[in-house]
């Protein structure tokens, strides 16, 4: 409970201490990841319910990252990380806040996430997805001016993958369900929790 609360409260020091303590007590890294996931469920719930705001989520994300840094070396292989995702902010946009929150949340849920950064050209999303063996391309965008680039990612994916094309998930302030439908994205997600729910249904 202490561990979970430290993440929900966004307390990095406590999270580091309790993570170490759990490991010395013999709790497995997978179990720790489960606890991280539970904590982030609560953070997601609080955010959706307007109990938490962006600054709260960012601090919780920091706490998660500090925990993941500690448990990462313990993972040899994990059945939880079989779904691979490349994520990035689309070309023409340098906003990273939403993308980083989603990335941390998904990592806390056990996905393997490759962060391509910001201002990512459409071609790079596709090339990196191929190289990484990603089942999902997650595209973030805050500016309406980048919409053509998002559409281009989908075109390139359709041209390059005849079978087993990665799912295209889009999110961010500039996109909507209508836009997603129009360009043929697989899913528009309002936030990380929404994306996790979709991935559980679509890929597991």
């Amino acid at each position: 409970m202490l561990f979970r609360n430290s993440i929900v409260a966004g307390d990095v020091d406590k999270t580091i201490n309790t993570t170490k303590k759990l490991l010395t007590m013999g709790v497995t890294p997978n179990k720790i990841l489960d606890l991280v996931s539970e904590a982030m469920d609560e953070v997601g719930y609080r955010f959706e319910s307007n109990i938490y705001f962006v600054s709260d989520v960012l601090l919780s994300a920091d706490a998660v990252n500090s925990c993941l840094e500690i448990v990462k070396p313990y993972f040899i292989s994990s059945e939880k990380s079989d779904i691979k995702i490349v994520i990035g902010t689309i070309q023409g946009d340098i906003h990273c806040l939403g993308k980083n929150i989603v990335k941390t949340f998904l990592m806390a849920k056990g996905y393997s996430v490759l962060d391509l950064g910001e201002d990512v050209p459409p071609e790079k999303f596709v090339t990196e997805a191929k190289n990484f063996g990603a089942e999902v391309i997650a595209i973030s965008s805050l500016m309406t001016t980048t919409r053509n680039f998002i559409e281009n990612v989908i075109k390139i994916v359709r041209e390059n993958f005849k079978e087993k094309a990665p799912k295209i998930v889009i999110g961010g302030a500039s996109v909507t369900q209508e836009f997603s439908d129009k360009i043929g994205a697989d899913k528009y997600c309002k936030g990380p929790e929404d994306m996790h729910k979709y991935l559980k249904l679509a890929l597991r």
Partner: protein
Amino acid sequence: MMTSKERVESVMAGEIPDFVPVEPGVTLEPNFVMKYIGEDVDQYFRNSKKCFMAIKKIYKDFNFDMILAGFSALIYPELFGGKVCYKKNKMPHVEKPVFKGIEEVEKAEIKSPDEVPVFKSVLESLKMLVDDIGNEVAVSGCTSGTFSVASQLVGVERFLKSLRTDLEFVSKVTKISGEAIVEVGKKIIDVGVKYIYYPDAISSGSILSPSQYEQVAKPLHSMFFKKMKEAGDVYTIYHPCGSEYPLLCEIKNINNVDVFHFSENVDFSVLRKIFGPTKVLMGGVDIKRTLCLGNSAEIETEVRKVITGAGKYGRLILAPGCSGEIPINNLRSFIEISRKLGKYPVVV
């Protein structure tokens, strides 16, 4: 028939104009403006003549009533000695935070906007607009908002986390940001602009809690509007940039705001009841769905709803809920429909 400028002035004076004025939201969008004349986006900030010519051409081609133009938070780091990158076909961006710690913020010196070429260029383009077409259309100069500028100076994540962990840091960064914005606002007034536009996305309801807004953001916004009123005979426009409902009670009580520019997230008939019959409301039309993706029938439905909700007796400026890039056909439809439905007395 009134000129565009007279139409807006009439709304500001509490009179009923011939038509509900329209502001199309595209002239503050560098990508739209410069693409319209086949130029690169960075020219919006770096070539006053091209920026002026592009905005004038858009105005002449579409015939709306208010031009929004001016500064983006992205370029403010230059006022503090920060390095902003301008690349072909890309929006400017700051390479690294200008300030790492509170000590650096305390030592910060703000350059005069006149001394920084990119600020000088934007001011020149505003002056050209005022001098050339300011007698026929309302020209509004955008300063950017305090939280938006502060987050560019120290990094968005750092700034937002500090809201919970280090309020002293937030207070110092927002103080110098606010001072810089006031200086820019004064320069905008000096070139003859009568409408000061203050948008602040980083203090919107999607980012701040109501208590953070009340305690930290609202006093800074209030200070800005007060300073602008002291600096000249101007109208002020505040754009809280979305997710307004949780903040409405606080927003309503900010003094010295003449126009509230709201997004489509709020129902304009509700806003009219909350803000009363005398406040000027602006915005209301959904840019992401309707103006970018919708057809003219959908635009008509939405324009009708905004006029019915808040504009039957004046005090309304139709506009997208936020600035952005609108497809040309929909931009044309939006203005034509606004003219059709917005003729006073309105029958909608």
